[in-house]
C-alpha cells in the first residue's frame, strides 16, 4: 500500500503520473510534511514499474522540492505552505482542458459552461442543504 492514492493509466508517462499524484496528495494533505516517502524499491514493486522509473520520479520530486532526501531516514515529504492556489489550479489542468474542449465541441458558450460548473459545485458541496432546499 502506498501512502498516496494513484491509479496508473496507459498513455501518459509514468513519471509524470507519479509526480502528479504525489503533488496532489501533498496539497490535499494526505502526505504530511516529514512523513517517510516509500523507497524506490517499494514504489517500483507496488506500482509494477521499473526501479529506474521510480527513481526518476523521486529524483524529480526532490528536484522540485516536494520531497527531501535526508541522510539517515531516506526520502521524506518536504514542508510546504498550505493552500498554494496556483498549484491547485495547475492540478486541475487536464480536467479543465477536457471540459473546455467538450464544451466547444458541443458549441456551448463560455458563460453557459461556467454557469454549469457553478451549479454542479453547489450540488456537490452541500447535499444536506440541497435536500432541505427542496
Amino acid at each position: 500500500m502506498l501512502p498516496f492514492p494513484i491509479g496508473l493509466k496507459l498513455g501518459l508517462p509514468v513519471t509524470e503520473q507519479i509526480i502528479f499524484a504525489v503533488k496532489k496528495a501533498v496539497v490535499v494533505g494526505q502526505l504530511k510534511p516529514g512523513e517517510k516517502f516509500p523507497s524506490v524499491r517499494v514504489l517500483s514493486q507496488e506500482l509494477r514499474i521499473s526501479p529506474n522509473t521510480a527513481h526518476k520520479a523521486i529524483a524529480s520530486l526532490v528536484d522540485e522540492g516536494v520531497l527531501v532526501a535526508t541522510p539517515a531516514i531516506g526520502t521524506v515529504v518536504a514542508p510546504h505552505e498550505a493552500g498554494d492556489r496556483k498549484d491547485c489550479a495547475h492540478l486541475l489542468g487536464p480536467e479543465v482542458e477536457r471540459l473546455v474542449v467538450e464544451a466547444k465541441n458541443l458549441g456551448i458558450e463560455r458563460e453557459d459552461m461556467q454557469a454549469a460548473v457553478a451549479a454542479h459545485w453547489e450540488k456537490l458541496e452541500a447535499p444536506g442543504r440541497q435536500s432541505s432546499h427542496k
Partner: protein
Amino acid sequence: MNAIEIHNLTRRFGRTDAVVDLSLSVPTGGIFALLGPNGAGKTTTIKILMNLISPTSGRASVLGVDSTRIGPKERAQIGYVAENQDLPLWMSVRQLLDYCRPFYPSWDRDLERALLVQFDLPEDRKLKNLSRGMLMKVALMSALSYRPKLLVLDEPFSGLDPLVRDEFVQGILEASEFGNWTVFISSHDIEEVERLADHVGVIDGGRTKLNESAESLLMRFRRIEVNLQGRTPLLEKMPAEWLAIDRVGTRVMFVDSRYSEGTAEALFQRHFPDAVVTSLPMTLREISLTIFRSGRKTPKGITL
C-alpha cells in the same frame, strides 16, 4: 556501457531476411521492451544475442562481450526465459532448483526462498503436473535466483492468465537491483510492458522502427482530432510526421508523431479559425499499431 549493443545486424534464412540492418542499444540498469508483430525478427534477434545462432553480418555485444563469444562465464550472468523452455518435466520444483544451483556461483538462496514463497510454488510437485503458469514461474525462478546482470525474456507472457502475469512482473521486480541490472523483454503484450518499460524498441520486418525511452515516446505521439465546423479541408502537403491521416465528413483524424504543446492546434487555427482541435495521448499499444500499419501502407517508409 550499454548492456546490449546491436550494430547493423543482419540475419538471413535462405531467401528470407529475418533481421535487416538492425541497430539498437539497451542501456544498463533499466527495463527494455522490444515490440513488434509476429515475424518481425524479435526471436531471431534474441537468439543472436544469446549466441544460439550466428548473424549473417553485423555484430552485437552483450554485457560488453561480443555475442559470438558468449560462453559459460557470461551465461552465468544472464538469465534467459523463452516460450519454449523445455524444462525436465520429470523433476520436482525442488529437484530443479537443486540441480541449477551448482551452476551459478552467484546463486542467492535467500532470494530463492523469497521467490518460492512469492510465487507460491509447491516444492515437491513434479514439473509435469504443474499448470503452464506455474511452469513459467518455475522457469523464471531458475533464471532469477542467481541475480543475473541481464535478464532476457522472449514472449514471457504468452498463454498466461492476468494473475500469473502480475506475479511474473512482481517476481522480476523482487529480484531487481536498481542500477546494476537490466531486463530485456520482447513481447506482443504491449499493455503489460507499457508500465514496466523504461526504454522501448519497435521492430517490424526485421528493421528498427523506434528506439527511445518510453517517456519520450509517450510524450511525442498524440492522436489529433479536428472538427472543422463545416469546412472541407484540402488534404495536401501534410507534414511527414502526421500518420494515419483519415477523414470522415468534416472531421479529420491523424497521429502526430512530433507533437509538442500547441503546434498542431496553431497550424489548424491558421487555416481554419473555427476548428476545434483535440489532442489525446496514445497508449504504447496504439503507437505501435500506428507504426506497424504505416510501415505496411507506404513502402517508402516514413522517417520518424
